């Protein structure tokens, strides 16, 4: 069960010819796949295409009705290898994952796929998670396209262009026997817009046809000597065929402008930002009518030499708006023009920054510089020398005055997260056994690297937490601790981490965080998800899997909130004399998903008049001394601070706000760490039973008697 439900929105996927679709970019991509007669879809979730996977999962009925098969792949490598179905059969297939981390994992399969080439259209939809809010190292998918010679689409970020890119992507793939990548930046994935739909198309050739009439073609298998032929084929046939298709179908777009002696070349995905930047420089209107001619590359690889030669004819200078580094396109354009002996001056990274997201402000400044240098007459009279100046921090007094008061807000564990107590226990073990080398992994648990826990030294990739500690496998006074999520475990960690540790006789400790979902990507199901699933095989035990590859010391803790047990188990793992890897499986359901699951049930039960108990924690303000040790061992969003009501004290008190879900960690921590007596747990009973009410009356009578005595004493003191 994913975090966001698209059950209602997927109805839009049924729209027929000429209807208007309103919705998110991701949903439009799904609709475009169905309009293109896709046979199968697969992928691995991750921002910004998690929602694409969620849409597909929620649309499974519609997909099945059209004869489209959808797989939740085990990893991006699996997803990419799925495209093998399009090698021999005229099947259109699409896979999706986040880039560049997903493409890294997929690149073995992609290289093989690109070597042999495809018969049916093969589309790789890449969610380019770059710039603001990004969670990955800043690399470019462009490099993967170049190294494997796969074509790269980077359409203008509006729904009609994105939908068209999906459709032409399949055609380009078939025309050139080459898999095609469609790159969508994060804001394009989430953009809300509209387009005119076409009816969905059932695939003409089906997966059943393929299974029942198998075909093979030795020439398409990536194995010498065929690979030598593939290499030649790429240069002699597939590339020219692709270029011809791109030119014939006018996939790239040219927009004329009055200043014909200069021009701007841009990646399609940066079109809207570039137009706005031109507009604010007085060089375009809101409809994209620009004074400077534009060459919009909806295909950023391969480059079409002839189009560059044509665009640069009669131009003294062009500006290349190319996001990310290194500047692959700018370098290539230099080569193209040099070879054609064209003297047009090429600007790009000299006027725009080499690195970082090309946001509006950045592009506006770059275009202003370019225009000032090449056609200063175009700049409207009276325009300030630099529009950006007032907004630069050092010149903006308001911004300066707040800057010391604004803290970063790195992501952190959610309210009641079951992973928090694992790190609280680690901090307690640290007090007794000292610090250890901790190899972190990708997943929510990576938030441990930030305050308040400050735990974790490296992260080498999804599922590679244990692998990241492999070298630290020598006799020493301390063992290394590695982290791994259940998502990473099934992605590859079982072999790369656990199997590897068994085989290399590692003595290190591995904590597998088993929260029942691929939580960080939006709560998708995985093989060890707790609940039965109609169309997926779930409820497979992680402990059995690690024992299956040879681990003998494996312990499952079924309640991570038991901090004392967690602490003692970790201590044992770090000190036991037993040889071989020590694996602790910390198993409690992701609280975000749990709340989503149980809250509606509670509400319904309460409405039916059933007894419902909700627990939450609180802090007594008059015994809290404002040291905040409890927060340092937790960091829960509902455990915060408030002004001290005591006129004698200055430190803010700790306060539990009503978003508390009563996970119990606060009580466990104050016990395990012997903190303070200020925490209390309140159980709120809705629809109490007769017995509840009877007990309550008796208690009130007795307690009330003593409390009245207290009040009398206080009054006379």
């Amino acid at each position, binding site marked *: 069960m994913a975090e966001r439900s698209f059950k209602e929105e997927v109805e839009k996927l049924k729209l027929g010819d000429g209807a208007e679709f309103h919705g998110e970019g991701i949903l439009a991509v799904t609709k475009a796949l169905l309009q293109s007669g896709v046979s199968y879809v697969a992928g691995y979730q991750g921002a910004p295409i998690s929602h694409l996977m969620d849409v597909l999962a929620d649309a499974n009925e519609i997909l099945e009705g059209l004869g489209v098969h959808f797989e939740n792949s085990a990893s991006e490598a699996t997803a990419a290898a799925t495209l093998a179905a399009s090698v021999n059969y005229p099947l259109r297939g699409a896979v999706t994952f986040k880039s560049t981390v997903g493409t890294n994992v997929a690149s073995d399969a992609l290289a093989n796929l690109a070597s042999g080439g495809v018969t049916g259209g093969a589309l790789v939809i890449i969610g380019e998670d770059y710039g603001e809010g990004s*969670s990955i190292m800043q690399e470019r998918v462009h490099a993967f396209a170049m190294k494997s010679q796969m074509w790269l689409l980077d359409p203008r970020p*509006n729904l009609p262009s994105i939908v068209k890119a999906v459709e032409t992507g399949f055609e380009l793939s078939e025309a050139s026997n080459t898999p095609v990548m469609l790159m969508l930046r*994060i*804001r*394009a994935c*989430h*953009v*809300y817009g509209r387009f005119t739909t076409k009816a969905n198309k059932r695939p003409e050739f089906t997966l059943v046809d393929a299974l029942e009439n198998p075909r093979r073609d030795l020439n398409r298998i990536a194995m010498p000597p065929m690979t030598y032929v593939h290499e030649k084929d790429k240069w002699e046939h597939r590339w020219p065929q692709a270029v011809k298709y791109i030119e014939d179908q006018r996939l790239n777009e040219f927009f004329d402008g009055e200043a014909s002696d200069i021009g701007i070349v841009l990646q399609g995905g940066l079109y*809207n*930002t570039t137009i*706005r930047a031109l507009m*604010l420089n007085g060089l375009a209107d*809101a409809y*994209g*009518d620009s*004074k400077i001619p534009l060459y919009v590359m909806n295909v950023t690889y391969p480059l079409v030499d002839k189009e560059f030669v044509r665009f640069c004819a009669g131009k003294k200078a062009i500006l290349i708006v190319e996001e990310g580094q290194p500047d692959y396109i700018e370098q290539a354009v230099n080569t193209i023009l040099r070879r054609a002996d064209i003297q047009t001056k090429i600007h790009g990274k000299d006027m725009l920054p080499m690195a970082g997201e090309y*946001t509006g*402000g950045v592009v506006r400044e770059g275009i202003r510089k370019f225009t000032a240098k090449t056609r200063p007459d175009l700049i409207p009279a009276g325009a300030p020398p630099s529009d*950006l100046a007032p*907004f*630069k921090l050092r010149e903006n007094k*308001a*911004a300066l*005055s*707040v800057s010391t*008061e604004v803290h970063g807000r790195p*992501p*952190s564990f*959610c309210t009641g997260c079951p992973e928090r107590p694992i790190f609280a226990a680690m901090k307690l073990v640290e007090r007794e056994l000292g610090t250890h080398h901790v190899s972190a992994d990708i997943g*929510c648990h990576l*938030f441990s690297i930030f305050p308040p826990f400050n735990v974790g030294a490296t992260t080498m990739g999804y599922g590679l937490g244990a692998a990241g500690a492999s070298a630290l496998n020598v006799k020493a006074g301390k063992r290394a601790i590695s982290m791994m999520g259940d998502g990473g475990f099934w992605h590859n960690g079982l072999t790369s981490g656990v199997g590897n540790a068994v085989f290399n006789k590692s003595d290190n400790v591995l904590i597998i965080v088993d929260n029942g979902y691929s939580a960080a990507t939006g709560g998708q199901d995985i093989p060890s998800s707790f609940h039965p699933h109609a169309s997926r095989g779930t409820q497979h035990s992680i402990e059995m899997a690690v024992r299956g590859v040879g681990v003998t010391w494996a312990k499952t803790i079924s309640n991570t909130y038991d901090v004392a047990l967690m602490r003692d188990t970790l201590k044992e793992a770090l000190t036991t004399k037993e040889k071989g890897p020590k694996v602790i499986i910390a198993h409690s359901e992701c609280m975000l998903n749990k709340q989503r699951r149980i809250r509606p049930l509670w509400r319904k039960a309460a409405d039916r008049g059933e007894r419902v108990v909700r627990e939450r924690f609180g802090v*007594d303000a*008059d*015994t809290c001394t404002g040291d*905040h*040790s409890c927060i340092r061992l937790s960091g829960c969003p509902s455990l*915060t601070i408030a002004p001290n009501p*005591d*006129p*004698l004290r200055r430190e*803010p008190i700790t306060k539990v706000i009503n978003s508390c879900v009563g996970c119990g960690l*606060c009580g466990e921590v104050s016990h395990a*760490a*012997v*903190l*303070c*007596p200020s925490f*209390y747990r*309140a159980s*709120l009973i809705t629809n109490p039973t007769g017995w509840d009410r009877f007990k309550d009356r008796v*208690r009130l009578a*007795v307690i*009330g008697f*003593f*409390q*009245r005595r*207290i009040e009398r004493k*206080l*009054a006379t*003191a």
Partner: protein
Amino acid sequence: METTAQRPITIAILAMGGEGGGVLAEWIIDVAEHAGYIAQMTSVPGVAQRTGATNYYVELFPKHGAKANSPAPVLGLTPMPGDVDIVIASELMEAGRAVQRGLVTPDRTTFIVSTNRVYSMTERIAMADGRVDSAALLEGCKSAAKRIIHGDMAQLAEATGSVISAVLFGALAGSKALPMQRMAFEAAIHRGGVGVKASIAAFGAGFASAEGGPVPVKAEPPVVSHISRALAPLMAEAGSYAEPARMFVRAGVERLADYQDVAYARDYLDRVKAIAEIDRRHSNGSGMLLAETARELALGMAYEDTVRVAELKVRPARFERVRAEVQAADGQIVEIAEFLHPRVQEIADTLPAGLGRWLLNTGWARRFVERFTKSGRIVKTSTIRGFLQLYFIASLKPTRRRSLRFANEQAFLREWLGTIQAVAATNYALATEIATTRTLVKGYSDTHERGRRNYDMLMQMLPRIMETPDPAATLAGLRKAALADDTGLALNIAIKDMRPLPQAAE
């Protein structure tokens, strides 16, 4: 070509994960589309949805203004500094972030700010007070915007039983920054169909706050305390001190009478009187030595022992406070459980001094008691059994003056007051800092021991501190370092960096 005539209305929303920023953006889209606008929205959630800062960006373009035969307008995907018409921030630090990013500009931006604070991790994990300056943030916001609408929208949301996004939507409507009428906004909420009644109420509160200008800050109800006849003369004496001390002395007298008895409050006043004499003799006119000593002395005398904790937990007012805090409705039953972890130390502290020392120093006895104090206890105060346990401990109050802890605390305070008195004669400012430094000793168990250790260390270093150019500032700096982390790292560095007064040139 006319380039300034037509431009979209640009709106940036800065929120935190889970605050409904997306719902707010969807309402805006809906209200705009129904009013004949082409609307585009985009967002960057990513991992930011896990409690981090997140933002939404909306552009609206009038359909009727569209050029004939022209394609759709090209709408932007990122807010551009200097080009944002409306910025909505659901929290004060996020508002500051918008200003910092240059999104709020005085020539253009209507700035809708909720002034409530969701404290950052840095602020929350501080060992004392790590909060940023809210007033400075709000000032920065005001000076950055063309027009600002601000108020505690979170409080309005709570008051109307809804979410902050609905209040902000109301404030947006009330700001008149968009050309649609109030009815059109409300219709969007109705079309949304989720929690309509509460959302409409919250919307109304937001609308009113925008129309009425800045919302007045809710005044805390004054604490009405009952002063008994026995205490009245003491309170009168406390009232005779001048500010800034008066407030603290009055609070101190009340606290200590409540903590122990009127006689204990009398002890306090006598000690304050002695300090007042010293302050008068050496004062620089500020009265800060008296104020700080009076404040810290009250806290030091009302140290948190098991008896005090038990007493506070069984009071009727506390039961009511818990009910209010968990927002219990009529007919709902609230059960309360405490998480207590008394150790041998705390038990010995409560015993008469001689017996307490014996317990701590006698191996077998200590080990015997330790067997029962290994793990924490959960005491259900709302049950008769749990209540009576705490009630019994609270009833030990009359024995407190004979307890081991009392003897230790009084000795500690005597020494502290002695140091203040001795230093005040030569360095008033340093004496004041010494008074304040007692604040390090707070909390329970490890926290208390660590604080005491740091305090002792600083007091032992006084001779060295006095050799620095500005001893008061040096001590203040060291105290700050002691509160910078709980490992003592910052304090050690600060001590190493301490430089004595340079010797006079020969």
